[in-house]
């Protein structure tokens, strides 16, 4: 595995994305296996969030090496995901008997899931100008 040679804000973003891939992924897998019937929609959405973070991690790593194309798409998908699931969890709370990672815009994770794609997009903007 090659690591991007230079330092910068993307190192912190990569740490966040790796941590959230782990957190969301482990949570989704455990809940899907042990309590599937309680809130399947919420748990599948948690797994989708985990996959998004894994792809986001890869996208940022690529962008830090100069290939910004995938990140330009992926970070917007992630932001749309957080906003959609966050809004649905508020207006259709009956679909969410148990919380998902992006429920209430990631309140269970201190709203970091909402801040992360925004921070990523701001970084990407600077990256493209370089």
């Amino acid at each position, binding site marked *: 595995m090659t690591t991007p040679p230079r*330092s*910068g804000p*993307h*190192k*912190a973003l990569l*740490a966040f994305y790796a*941590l959230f891939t782990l957190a969301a992924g*482990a949570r989704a897998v*455990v809940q899907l296996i*042990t309590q599937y019937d309680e809130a399947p929609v919420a748990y599948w959405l948690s797994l989708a969030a985990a996959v998004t973070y894994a792809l986001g991690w890869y996208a940022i790593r690529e962008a830090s090496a100069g290939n910004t194309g995938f990140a330009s798409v992926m970070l917007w998908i992630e932001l749309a995901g957080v906003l959609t699931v966050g809004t649905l969890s508020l207006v259709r709370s009956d679909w969410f008997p148990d919380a998902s990672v992006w429920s209430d815009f990631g309140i269970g994770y201190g709203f970091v899931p909402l801040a992360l794609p925004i921070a990523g997009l701001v970084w990407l903007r600077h990256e493209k100008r370089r």
Partner: protein
Amino acid sequence: MPSLSTQVTWIVVGYAVLVAVLAVVAAVRGHERPSWLDQMVWMLEVLLVVRALIGLGAFSGDDKPASTSTYVGYLVASVCVLPIAMRSIEGDRAVWSSVVVAVVAVAVGVIAVRLEMTA
């Protein structure tokens, strides 16, 4: 009096917060990541290993964790996160590497709290 594992958890959380604060200070000052910060991270790792070993003892007692898979997940994550993070900033002593230390220090602090909640 709280159990040994609870006491060690709060030492871990307090120390993790200290590491995070000092990492932010180091980053704000704009210098390279100081070597004492690395030493503090490894000290935090030692504390996490001690907490994990005590945590493993929970399985032999009568007071077993409510959700074994969740508990084991947090236990494993608590000891793996710092070495992986330090590997990711190996050879990079620039300012942003201190921010990475701050992020992961907060993360292991949160993991330690969650571990205590699921114990």
